[in-house]
């Protein structure tokens, strides 16, 4: 007898579908059952498209029965952050301004995922416009952590992270402008990747210049499957990478022994890391050594300036896009979001240009550091904090300390991946992060896959979920 598909990875679900051992319709139904059981409590989804998902599934079952060629994601069930436009499915950005917006077209990344056979089951929750902080005053209340229901889910791709770890979906798609996919991946025992800038086109969606569409999944192999399906050149996107997509899946079983990993110990020691984070970090380093990697302490510079530059760009671009609507629809914005958005009104062109120049300098510096030291990646925690609430202490949030490890690599464009690495005192997962060279996303996936095979994290699920099976 086959166990519930919800308990399997995306790759396993797709394999069983290809082999005719499960139907896409049944896979959708079993995921809808979990959504119906848990979403009222967790608020992971804003919109569940049961009808549309079942129609996609029926078409897939028919294609398979006809012997048609199937895509690598065929039969897999995805949740998509509600900031990414999906044709005929309401895309609210968790804002009253867009509560009835049904896009006429899919964003290009959604078209690619559908072409690969993925079934979009619904739209996942986020902070309003992926900005500010979670608030009961948004269109929908914020998502809660499936690991400890007294804690909020870390954002801004908070619903994507919660839905994936709660087995409501096979995997999910988020966005990451300063850590918004890697941070929830870390806090949900998931693999989450911000790809190299330009690899996954943002064509067809509103986005910040350094925000990347990012997959979140329960295994590293799933991440590779998703990234390969999402990537590719888009002629109409001037930031899109005009090269062939590498074979992330085919090449994932690489021998990583002897690979050098940089450990920026001095920088890490300067962050306000909680003890649980440091304990998990040391264990993670030991695991990398067990895998044959060689650790080398490095002097890492400019992380604070790069974080500051990313913060300035994010604030300025967000305000630029909302400035007219803020004047016209002030009362329709969440009370917290509209105040956050106004920060950008006090950033001037010169500040933006300085931020861009610093971003470029940091990008070149970090790439040179990797080259000169012959390092495949550097390792840091994903967040210095072990719960969402601790990361949002007002004094620290205004400085973006919760994103001290993640945000610098948004403005630099380097690929960066969060891996599961244990649990904190609140029984909420902790993530560790690897960041590598531009367009060497493959090496990160290969390290993550080797780590995944030697650890048990992928098999651990929230008690709230296991009680349903």
């Amino acid at each position, binding site marked *: 007898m086959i166990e519930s598909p919800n308990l399997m990875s995306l790759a396993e679900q797709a394999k069983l579908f290809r082999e005719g051992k499960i139907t896409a319709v049944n896979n959708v139904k079993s995921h809808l059952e979990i959504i119906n059981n848990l979403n009222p409590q967790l608020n992971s989804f804003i919109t569940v498209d049961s009808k549309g998902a079942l129609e996609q599934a029926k078409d897939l079952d028919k294609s398979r029965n006809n012997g048609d060629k199937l895509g690598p994601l065929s039969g897999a069930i995805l949740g998509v952050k509600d900031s990414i436009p999906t044709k005929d499915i309401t895309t609210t950005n968790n804002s009253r301004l867009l509560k009835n917006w049904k896009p006429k077209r899919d964003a290009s990344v959604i078209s690619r995922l559908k072409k690969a056979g993925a079934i979009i089951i619904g739209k996942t929750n986020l902070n309003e416009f992926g900005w500010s902080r979670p608030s009961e005053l948004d269109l929908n209340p914020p998502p809660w952590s499936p690991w400890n229901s007294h804690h909020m889910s870390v954002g801004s791709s908070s619903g994507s992270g919660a839905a994936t770890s709660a087995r409501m979906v096979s995997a999910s798609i988020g966005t990451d402008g300063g850590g918004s996919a890697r941070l929830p991946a870390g806090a949900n025992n998931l693999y989450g990747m911000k790809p190299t800038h330009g690899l996954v086109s943002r064509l067809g969606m509103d986005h910040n210049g350094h925000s990347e569409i990012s997959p979140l999944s329960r295994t590293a192999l799933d991440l590779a499957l998703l990234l390969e399906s999402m990537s590719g050149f888009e002629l109409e996107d001037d930031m899109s990478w005009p090269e062939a997509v590498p074979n992330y899946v085919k090449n994932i079983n690489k021998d990583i022994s002897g690979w050098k990993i940089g450990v920026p110990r001095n920088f890490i020691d*300067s962050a306000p890391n909680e003890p649980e984070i440091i304990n998990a970090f040391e264990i993670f380093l030991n695991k990398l050594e067990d895998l044959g990697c060689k650790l080398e302490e490095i002097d890492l510079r400019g992380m604070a300036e790069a974080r500051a530059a990313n913060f300035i760009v994010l604030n300025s671009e967000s305000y630029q896009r909302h400035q007219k609507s*803020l004047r016209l629809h002030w009362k329709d914005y969440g009370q917290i979001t509209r105040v956050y958005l106004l920060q950008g009104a006090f950033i001037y062109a010169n500040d933006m240009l300085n931020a861009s120049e610093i971003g470029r300098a940091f990008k070149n510096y970090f790439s040179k550091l990797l080259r000169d030291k012959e390092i495949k990646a550097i390792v840091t925690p994903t967040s210095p904090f072990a719960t969402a609430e601790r990361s949002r202490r007002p004094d620290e949030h205004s400085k973006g300390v919760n994103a001290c490890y993640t945000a610098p690599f948004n403005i630099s464009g380097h690929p960066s991946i969060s891996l599961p690495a244990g649990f904190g005192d609140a029984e909420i997962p902790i993530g560790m992060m690897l960041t590598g060279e531009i367009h060497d996303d493959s090496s990160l996936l290969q390290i993550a896959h080797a780590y995944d095979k030697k650890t048990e994290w992928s098999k651990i699920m929230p008690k709230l979920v296991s009680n349903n099976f």
Partner: protein
Amino acid sequence: MEKNYKNKDRSEKLRKMVPISEDEINDLNKLLEGVDSAIELMSTLVQPFDQEIDVSKMSSTVDGENYD
């Protein structure tokens, strides 16, 4: 003193832009301390005309300090 003037200017600009409440202005001014810190930190790297950013002068800590 300088901070008070800055906040007053900002408050006046905001009231002309949107129907913002005094509580919201206070909240925003707190957030803008983060923006001001970021701009100040960036300015330490900006160079005079025709000189490039000296990466060796970049900070080594999370707070932007340099302990060399």
